[in-house]
């Protein structure tokens, strides 16, 4: 029956597709080892990047020439990292690079930002909590309002589940007055209530203009930052500092990073980081900064790059590359699986089967499977189906196991 054949081929394709997803997933779970890189930071005393290994209690610090340093030498060579220990022992220098170093100064210039595509590319409710940026009482900036900003602006009182028409109108008028064009491409800010202050959200409108939106004394504050970039802005990554001087890091579509601050005239200023472009959809970036230098670590599939940038000018001081160590998964997957379909795409929090890689080296394993298929057919005297042979040669283990699960030898 022709229709029975159609059903058979559809089910065969579906089983092959499911096996192509599930078998690499299980093998990946069994064989993949995450990369472990040493902590690489900039030493203000040695003026170079050094490796820190906290598990080595005797010689935790290694410089670029391989020389190892004891714990007390490590404390002295990394004063901005071990300032608490040095201050407890009364060994903290008065200044570093002509900068006064007391506890307050050191802590106020510290900054930590994590940038990854998964933090941006994730499901969102499109409702953002409204925080008061100038609260009357310290740390009481949470309000009972949320706003939605996509096709239109809406403000809800979540304590009473009431759509506040008055506040919505005020908010909408403020946006239109500042020439905000709906719909917003993204709205990003720090939505955590466990923070020392709030400076609102940054939003990209439909025309690619970047706006700063916050609530000041119960009224909406909307300003066009006039920060422009030829390739457009990919995302914004907020951070808090005790000096309240850095809003966060902007990432452009071509992979450049910029620090967003206010200049002396109160205008928004994007200072580019002097480092190579990253891949905004795949690379993960960690920034650990202090009063002297920013340590920027970029994790890529081929390894980890670390750049030390001047904290003031963001110019490149030093850089280092540590290649990735291949694990069992990296060694075997290209030889066995011609197609690798992952359920969760790297760089995204969405669940959706996506083709990640096509491995041409797996043709040799496919040939072995094709031979196994031929031998089995010969042994049982069954006719060889050429479409089945071609499927095994192209799709490999998925097609082979599908035909094993659903043989076409119906017997009455």
């Amino acid at each position, binding site marked *: 029956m022709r*229709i029975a054949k159609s059903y058979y081929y559809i089910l065969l394709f579906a089983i092959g597709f499911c096996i192509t997803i599930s078998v690499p997933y299980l093998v990946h779970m069994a064989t993949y080892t995450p990369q472990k890189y040493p902590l690489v930071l900039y030493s203000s005393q040695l003026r170079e990047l050094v490796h820190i290994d906290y598990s080595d209690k005797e010689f935790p610090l290694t410089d670029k020439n391989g020389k190892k340093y004891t714990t007390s030498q490590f404390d002295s060579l990394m004063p901005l990292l071990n300032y608490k220990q040095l201050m407890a022992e009364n060994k903290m220098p008065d200044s570093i690079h002509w900068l006064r170093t007391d506890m307050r100064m050191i802590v106020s210039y510290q900054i930590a930002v994590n940038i990854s595509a998964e933090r941006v590319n994730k*499901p969102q*409710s499109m*409702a953002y909590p409204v925080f008061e940026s100038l609260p009357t009482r310290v740390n009481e900036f949470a309000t009972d309002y949320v706003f939605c900003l996509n096709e239109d602006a809406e403000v809800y009182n*979540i304590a009473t589940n009431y759509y506040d028409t008055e506040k919505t109108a005020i908010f909408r008028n403020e946006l239109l007055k500042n020439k905000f064009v709906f719909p917003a491409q993204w709205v990003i800010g720090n939505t*955590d209530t466990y923070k020392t202050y709030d400076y609102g959200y940054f939003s990209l409108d439909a025309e690619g203009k970047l706006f700063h939106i916050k609530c000041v004394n119960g009224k909406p504050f909307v300003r066009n930052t006039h920060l422009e970039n030829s390739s457009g802005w990919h995302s914004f990554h907020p951070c808090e500092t005790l000096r309240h001087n850095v809003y966060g890091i902007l990432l452009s579509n071509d992979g450049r990073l910029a620090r967003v601050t206010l200049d002396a005239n109160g205008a928004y200023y994007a200072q580019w980081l002097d480092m190579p472009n990253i891949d905004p959809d795949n690379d993960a970036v960690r920034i650990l900064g202090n009063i002297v230098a920013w340590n920027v670590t970029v994790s890529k599939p081929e390894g980890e790059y670390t750049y030390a940038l001047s904290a003031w000018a963001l110019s490149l001081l030093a850089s280092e590359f540590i290649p990735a160590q291949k694990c069992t998964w990296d060694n075997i997957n290209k030889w066995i699986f011609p197609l690798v379909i992952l*359920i969760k795409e790297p760089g995204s929090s969405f669940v959706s089967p996506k083709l990640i890689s096509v491995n041409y080296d797996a043709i040799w394993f496919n040939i072995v499977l094709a031979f196994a298929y031929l031998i089995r057919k010969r042994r049982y005297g069954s006719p060889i189906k050429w479409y089945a042979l071609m499927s095994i040669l192209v799709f490999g283990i998925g097609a082979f196991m*599908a035909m094993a699960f659903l043989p076409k030898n119906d017997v009455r």
Partner: protein
Amino acid sequence: MKTLIQSIFYREWHKTRLIVIGSFVVTISIMLYILLSFAHDVRASGLTTIVRDIAVNNLQPLAIFKLVPTILGALLAIGQFIPEVTDDKLKLTLHLPFNEHYILATLLGYGTLALSAVLSVGMLLSMIIGKYVPFTMLNYIIISVHPWLASGLITYALVAASIIEPYWARRISLLPIMLTFQFILLLDSQPMALSESWLFMIFSIVVSYIAPFYNMIRYKNGYIK
């Protein structure tokens, strides 16, 4: 044709009425529990905190409902098709003077409609959460449940296919499909995590409903291997 559908529906209802009524009771009970639990959390933590958790931390109030469609789908398929196969009633039914595809489509249509009715009642009750959260966020919560509902339909169709299949070893051939589809659809409770997988959901439902038709042909023609 209309008489055939009515007759088959009546017969299936007569056979599965306890399971369907029980499914309604279970779904309504679970939904009422979810609503009571949500109201309790609102009284304990405050509505502002709960709504902010939904908006920012992707809290899913309906998380307890995740496996309910899958379990109900399996139970309905077992209750509907096992008596058909053990008493060989299905063979007689398929030999009625109608196309066997229409007959099986009617049988599956009854089960799908019954399951859909049960789950629709559950989803209607879940709308009561809209009393507490803005409409945008209610939309966000409800749409997130669609993969679980799809999982229920897929389980119903594949369990029915497994029961109809005459050869026990061939039932294992459906395992890769069932496990993979269920794993993907039930993997992440995070709201809207599968919002980019509509095509995959439709593909998995279509394939799952083709499997009973293939096994029905094998059953009717008496294939033993």
